[in-house]
């Protein structure tokens, strides 16, 4: 039953992605200042939005675990974080490529890129820590705490660097916009939906793996107790 859902999401996501990419690459006119590559924004930013969505779901489930001790919530949290990391990576890599093509630099420590990178680092720590704890309850509790602390830090990172950029006049090449051409909103939101669908399928896949692993752990423990 769940398999069907995964397939449906994946197929829907793929179809929509093909349609949207076609629209972006072929149908839409080139961006005024940056040429064709300006459309990278439509791949780069929705990835960040998708990542934030999944981080948000993960943090919500982390809080739920702390309150209710529901291990399904813990499995959901780790699945969402793993997939969110993938989208953060997509965001970072496309951002870097874009920066290189337009401005000749691979990286800059402006507040957006840096915040994304820090987000990646913080949750990377989360993912690294999990295998290092043997007991499932302790692992889930620790993960939940880490997820909450990380999410509290992100806005601080954002503002800290933004303040510093303002003072130091750092080059902030990527996205001086915020003024996106209104006709771009549809493909933008569609790309976000694409990412959500594909991400959703991946999460369900990962969730199934987590559930099976939990069952195996408990069976193994039951066996040892005999």
């Amino acid at each position, binding site marked *: 039953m769940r398999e069907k859902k995964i397939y449906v999401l994946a197929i829907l996501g793929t179809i929509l992605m093909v349609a949207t990419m076609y629209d972006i690459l072929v149908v839409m006119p080139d961006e005024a200042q940056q040429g064709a590559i300006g459309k990278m924004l439509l791949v780069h930013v929705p990835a960040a939005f998708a990542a934030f969505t999944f981080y948000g779901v993960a943090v919500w489930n982390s809080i739920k675990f*702390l309150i209710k001790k529901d291990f399904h919530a813990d499995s959901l949290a780790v699945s969402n974080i793993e997939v969110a990391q993938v989208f953060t990576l997509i965001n970072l890599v496309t951002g870097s490529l874009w920066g290189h093509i337009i401005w000749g630099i691979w990286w800059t420590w402006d507040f957006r890129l840096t915040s994304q990178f*820090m987000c990646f*680092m*913080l949750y*990377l*720590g989360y993912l*690294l*820590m999990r295998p*290092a*704890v*043997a*007991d499932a*309850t*302790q692992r889930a*509790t*620790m993960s*939940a*705490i*880490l997820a*909450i*602390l*990380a999410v*509290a*830090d992100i806005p*601080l*990172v954002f*503002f*800290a*660097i933004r*303040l*510093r950029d303002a003072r130091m006049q750092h080059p902030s090449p990527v996205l001086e916009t915020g003024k996106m051409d209104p006709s771009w909103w549809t493909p933008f939101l569609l790309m976000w939906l694409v990412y959500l669908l594909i991400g959703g399928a991946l999460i369900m896949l990962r969730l199934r793996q987590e559930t099976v692993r939990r069952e195996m752990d408990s069976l193994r423990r039951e066996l040892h107790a005999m």
Partner: protein
Amino acid sequence: MKRDLLAALFIARKDLRTEFRTKEALNAAVSFALVVLVLFSFAFDLERSELYDISGGLLWIIYLFAGSLIVNRSFTREVPNDCLDVLVASPVPAWALFLGKAISSFTLLMVVELVSLPFYGLFNNIIWMKTFWPHFCLMLLATWGITVTGVAFSAVTVNVRLRELMLPVLHYPLLIPLLIGAMEMSTALLRGDAVDNGPNLRLIVVFDAIFTSLSLYLIEFILVT
């Protein structure tokens, strides 16, 4: 409430007493700070004025590395003989236990920082005495942020394998906003810049407030699973 605060102080006093008896962590931390100082002096060959430009960054990296040695131990020192169990089972509430540990770690960190500061000034020919008191206030605020987050992580990772390796991976990224504020403000103070340090100070205070309250609230979940 008053009794709980007193309990926190008893716990802090216990930590400080045991640490000052052996001085293991203190010696290690101060030595480490000196080693890092020396390494940096070989890493960069800068003019005196250029050194002032990186002075704040350098100082807080040294403090961070040395401080980790102390802050990481904070809850692990309760693990031998299962003392942590006894503390958690006692009437002392989890937040008071955390506060006691944070106070003792904070005190030890400040000692390490104050001892390292003259050496830092000496080896880099940086004059720090002129702006000592404002700098000292900065050190108090920023060190509290490092302490409170570090002690929280120490509690969370008490049972984790390879915790010494993991802790920096978790702790340092989290501290970025605090470090940005502290490093900039230190540089400004040491260089004698006439800038408004208000925004940086506010950043540090907000960081401290958020993570102190989060830690005090979450510690119960960490210790009683």
